[in-house]
């Protein structure tokens, strides 16, 4: 028995208890900090006891939904994943998740680790945990103040993949030219997922699209179909690079607004049709990533079906929360491409909507809110009969909506989140939906507020 690990795990458990008692929220980073302070090698020491090894899910958008979907499938298949489902995706959060699942010897009571990992943390996490599977969802511009520019992030991810062991597997999004270009120096085997038959494509690249040039030769990519952002079916006229053929693919997608979609999926072992209870084409990618990962881990069709159809939304990712006779539809909107997709989904809900837009500029959101000028709010402007702007950058949000064409009479600014939520609920009729679009910490704040109002269960109790 390792006394130092035991002390660290015990301290971590105490810290978890304490931070919950004190109402600090999920208490998911602080315990990790305590543990790492006492034993810097704690996460790898605990993970070494997992017989099925570790799976890491990284990328800009879709990490939480993909890993939660995969966890649901794993559980449906009788596995017991140790999972940082709260979305605390730095080393501290992973450490805390492992400790919470462990006994005092530091032996976790699960059979494999499933961790979503912040894209900048992937190299460090891969080095510590030596994953047997790495899933990368997509790379968009996000928090340039924190992550830096995309190409430098891609280089770090390449280095992380190059260090994987030969038996490991990597599952990449074929529709993202930058992600599909990753892993050229890895000894792990590479697999791809992608969308083949999307009826609802875009006429052209949006200005917020990021990877429009071939990573190999720098020529502008030619797109045969645009899904969203820089996702699509592309090839390079310069060097002949083409999109890899996906092993796990959606052959047909029918979108049904915020309700979700119907998706026909083909995999090397089976084909099936799913009712996906999650909106937007981006969630079809999340589904493909999760079911591809599940098949690479040896799960069968039945587990995938049970896991996906019994899935309840990860908090703040299209969650519907009843409050005061209204429904709050809470969706995390944190970067240009993610926000554009949320707006596209809302367009299917008609006009005269009540919208709460919460923009924070805390460190986890990115301190720079310039990115809101890259979002196509011009397409959101016709939708609301009332839009309440809130958050630490409420005025920036309101100003963006003014320049997008929303007239003053339909626009309201409430810096205080509680007042803003009140104003939005008051603007909605009984039985109506309030659409809450919020950045990361604003989603947490909103969720905490709803918990205190008795409308939503605590974050750490969900799932």
């Amino acid at each position: 028995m390792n006394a130092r690990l035991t002390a660290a795990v015990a301290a971590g458990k105490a810290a978890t208890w304490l931070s919950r008692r004190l109402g600090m929220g999920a208490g998911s980073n602080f315990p990790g900090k305590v543990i790492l302070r006492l034993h810097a090698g704690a996460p790898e020491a605990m993970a070494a006891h997992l017989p099925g090894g570790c799976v890491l899910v990284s990328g800009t958008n879709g990490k939480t939904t993909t890993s939660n979907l995969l966890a649901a499938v794993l559980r449906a298949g009788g596995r017991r994943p140790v999972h940082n489902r709260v979305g605390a995706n730095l080393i501290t959060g992973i450490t805390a998740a492992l400790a919470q699942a462990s006994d005092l010897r530091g032996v976790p009571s699960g059979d494999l680790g499933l961790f979503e990992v912040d894209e900048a943390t992937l190299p460090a996490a891969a080095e510590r945990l030596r994953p047997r599977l790495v899933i990368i969802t997509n790379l968009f511009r996000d928090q340039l103040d924190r992550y830096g520019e995309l190409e430098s992030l891609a280089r770090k991810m390449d280095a992380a993949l190059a260090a994987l062991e030969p038996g490991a597997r990597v599952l990449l999004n074929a529709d993202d030219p930058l992600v599909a270009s990753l892993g050229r120096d890895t000894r792990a085997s590479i697999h791809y997922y992608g969308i083949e038959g999307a009826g609802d494509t875009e006429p052209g690249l949006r200005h917020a699209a990021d990877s429009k040039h071939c990573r190999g030769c720098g020529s502008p990519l030619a797109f045969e179909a645009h899904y969203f952002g820089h996702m699509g079916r592309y090839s390079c006229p310069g060097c002949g690079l083409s999109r890899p053929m996906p092993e796990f693919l959606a052959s047909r997608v029918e979108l049904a607004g915020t309700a979700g979609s119907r998706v026909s999926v083909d995999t090397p072992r089976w084909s099936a049709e799913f009712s996906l209870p999650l909106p937007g084409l981006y969630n079809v990618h999340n589904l493909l990533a999760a079911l591809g990962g599940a098949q690479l881990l040896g799960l069968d069709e039945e587990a995938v079906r049970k896991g996906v159809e019994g899935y309840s939304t990860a908090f703040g990712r299209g969650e519907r929360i009843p409050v005061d006779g209204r429904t709050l539809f809470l969706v995390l909107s944190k970067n240009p491409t993610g926000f554009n997709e949320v707006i596209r989904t809302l367009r299917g809900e008609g006009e005269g909507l009540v919208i709460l837009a919460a923009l924070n500029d805390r460190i986890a959101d990115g301190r720079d809110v310039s990115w809101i000028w890259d979002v196509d709010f011009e397409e959101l402007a016709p939708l609301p009969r009332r839009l309440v702007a809130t958050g630490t950058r409420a005025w920036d949000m309101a100003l963006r909506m003014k320049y997008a064409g929303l007239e003053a009479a339909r626009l309201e600014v409430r810096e205080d989140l509680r007042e803003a939520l009140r104003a939005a609920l008051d603007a909605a009729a009984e039985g109506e939906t309030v659409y809450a679009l919020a950045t990361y910490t604003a989603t947490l704040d909103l969720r905490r507020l709803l918990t205190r109002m008795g409308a939503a269960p605590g974050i750490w109790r969900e799932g």
Partner: protein
Amino acid sequence: MPVLRICHLYPELMNIYGDRGNVIALVGRCLWRGWEARVVRLSLGDPIDPSLHDLFFIGGGQDREQMMVCEDLAGEKGEALRAAVEDGAALLSICGGYQLLGRRFLTCTGEDLPGVSLFDVETVGGDTRFIGNVAVECALEGVGGTLVGFENHSGRTRLGPAARPLGRVLRGHGNNGEDGTEGCVHRHAIGTYLHGSLLPKNPRLADWLILQALRRRHELEELPPLDDALEEAAHRAALRLVLGERPRKGRPRLRRLRPSR
């Protein structure tokens, strides 16, 4: 009826920091006055005719894109841009765009990129980035007051003897983090590190650019006023935020472990 002819340079290459909000603001503020604004987008290989545009805009971009633009602006195209500004056209350049319009840019990897020499400034790549909210006391006549924005750059820009700064840094780093200057002004051309986007929250600067640009072809003393209550409120909120920020020392401590109310 005045028509503002805007030339947006390299919109698909120099676009990652939301700088297009500046063009949105310029266009909006013309339309609200009942005027027309036309935006022409020019990129690699497209020639610039100095007589066709009243206001040029170029934003910030990533390193690789900046190199491509640097090459494209060398020679005739850079000269056309200089000629337009000497003839009275207005120009706004942000971050990477600003750096390219100086005399030269020495990158931290040792490359020596020649600039357009519109501004008498030189930039040297640093090993750390200046990232954060900025407040500036604006030195531009007819604008005055404060400017607010967000900076994110590793370049250190130094003003030459002929250069006038856009303003004095109240909070943040500005041109180089040492001499207290931010940005540069030459005739009606402005270079600055401020993203945010800059113009929506600094409407007086937006109107200064519009006025200078239109004066080239129209008789105008001043612009008809707009209702800027929301713009000014956003400006004040950003100013409060940046002036209230204390310089961060080290990492947050366990002291923050208090029940949230």
